[in-house]
């Protein structure tokens, strides 16, 4: 077992301002970045603010940007860096900062509320649901999501354009719409809710330019773009961009 001193730069500050602070800290075999942050807390900076919970990549709390890449601190092993490298840790840069590595992720909770919930089929009671495995596979993949919000953080639609936040739900919640639209027993359409259409009209699917950063950063390996966003775009096309229907509606509008 060998240990060494690593150089870290950790962003410290709050909404008033802040900067990268230098640390030298011990690193042991098999450790992850979160271990090092904890060591800093215990030995050098007891008030260093950081969110974490399970430390096993299951809860999605310890999201941060490590050397500029959105990652879970608990799932970033120190062995991926060289010993000479200075490792930079900053809070998520798409959300308002609270303090140090902690950001205000309220955006995501606001968006979660805007997606209409699962609509149970009226004719089935508890215990009467029958679904085939192949019919739930797709939605199950999306339900692996641990809501670390790394996809929301990396998505340039809101990361680089604060003004798009009201209009765009972000990959996580567009995926939620896809999950519900693919749920074999979701009865939204019986209640007049067309998830395919609202994905485009209310949740900002059109902003997505499928540049796949959400998929790239997903710690659960969910194929967000290929399996959720693009299928959802295709479903929206079914509803909205059939050119004949579109042309028809244009002509009618003009003549009226």
């Amino acid at each position, binding site marked *: 077992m060998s240990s060494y001193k690593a150089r870290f730069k950790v962003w410290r500050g709050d909404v008033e301002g802040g900067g990268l602070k230098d640390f030298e800290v011990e690193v042991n075999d098999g450790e992850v970045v979160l271990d090092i942050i904890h060591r800093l807390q215990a030995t050098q900076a007891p008030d260093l603010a950081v969110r974490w919970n399970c430390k096993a990549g299951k809860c999605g709390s310890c999201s941060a940007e490590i050397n500029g890449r959105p990652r879970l601190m608990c799932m970033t092993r120190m062995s991926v860096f060289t010993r000479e490298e200075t490792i*930079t840790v900053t809070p998520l840069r798409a959300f308002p900062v609270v303090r140090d590595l902690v950001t205000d992720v309220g955006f995501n909770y606001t968006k979660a509320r805007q997606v209409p919930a699962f609509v149970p089929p009226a004719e089935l009671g508890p215990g009467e649901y029958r679904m085939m495995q192949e019919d739930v596979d797709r939605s199950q993949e999306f339900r692996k999501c641990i809501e670390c919000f790394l996809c929301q953080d990396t998505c340039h639609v809101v990361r680089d354009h604060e003004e798009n936040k009201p209009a765009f739900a972000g990959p996580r919640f567009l995926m939620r719409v896809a999950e519900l639209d693919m749920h074999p027993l979701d009865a939204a359409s019986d209640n007049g809710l067309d998830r395919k259409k609202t994905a485009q009209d209310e949740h900002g699917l059109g902003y997505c330019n499928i540049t796949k950063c959400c998929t790239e950063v997903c710690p659960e390996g969910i194929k967000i773009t290929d399996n959720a966003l693009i299928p959802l775009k295709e479903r929206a096309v079914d509803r909205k961009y059939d050119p004949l229907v579109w042309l028809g509606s244009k002509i009618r509008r003009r003549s009226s």
Partner: protein
Amino acid sequence: MATGTEPHLNSGGVRTGTRAAIDAPHLRTDRWWLAPAATAAGLLAFIVYSTWRAFANADYYSAPYVSPFYSPCLAENCKNMPSGPNADLFGSWWAISPAIIILIFPLGFRLTCYYYRKAYYRGFWASPPACAVAEPHKKYSGETRFPLILQNIHRYFFYAAILVAAVLTYDTVLSFRDTDENWGHMGLGTVVFLINIVLIWAYTISCHSCRHIVGGKLKHFSKHPVRYQAWKFVGKLNARHMLLAWASLVSVAVADFYVYLLASGAFDDPRFF
């Protein structure tokens, strides 16, 4: 508290006032620019090559091979290609290269393809250049407005691409002839055409729209077992859509270039039998 507390620029994006005050547009230390740069270079090379060849209006037929850029050939000014993909739909008024007529379709297919969109949004438009690297644009509306809203018609280009692929398949069959139109022969060009058509089909079938149409749009796979199998098959190909996009792009250029070499007399097709 912090070393060199930076004043907040508050200039939008990651420098929005409420976010962590970090001036740098990104802090990535890896070679993040490599992928978009390589993509841009590759696409640019193809654009230059294909523009030259499409407007050349020459050296696209050397029996039994017809360049995929000129097939099907739909104007009167097309070379006569014995039993080849000639169909004079446009007549004599079409004065420039007949390649332009047909290339619209594969071009449109690739331009609206979900993979190529990613490639050129990142490579050419830097929107974004790479993940968590700030993009240089002040405004962004994605594919919500004209002209990018037209990306939604991808599936109709897919249908057209199927027709084009069918014609190219026909061309490949024709390549099993010799220069005198006798069947049962093969040359190096036949192999080039075979590889190309396999890649073209694989790329076309692996399209996201195709995946949607064959089964993705269904709510209950269990009620459509055949379409479910088709969807799974397309899904497997679709996972390699990027690879197939590049492979077929190269192969179509190679096939064309091969015909160019033959037609311009720079090279003789080695015949196997």
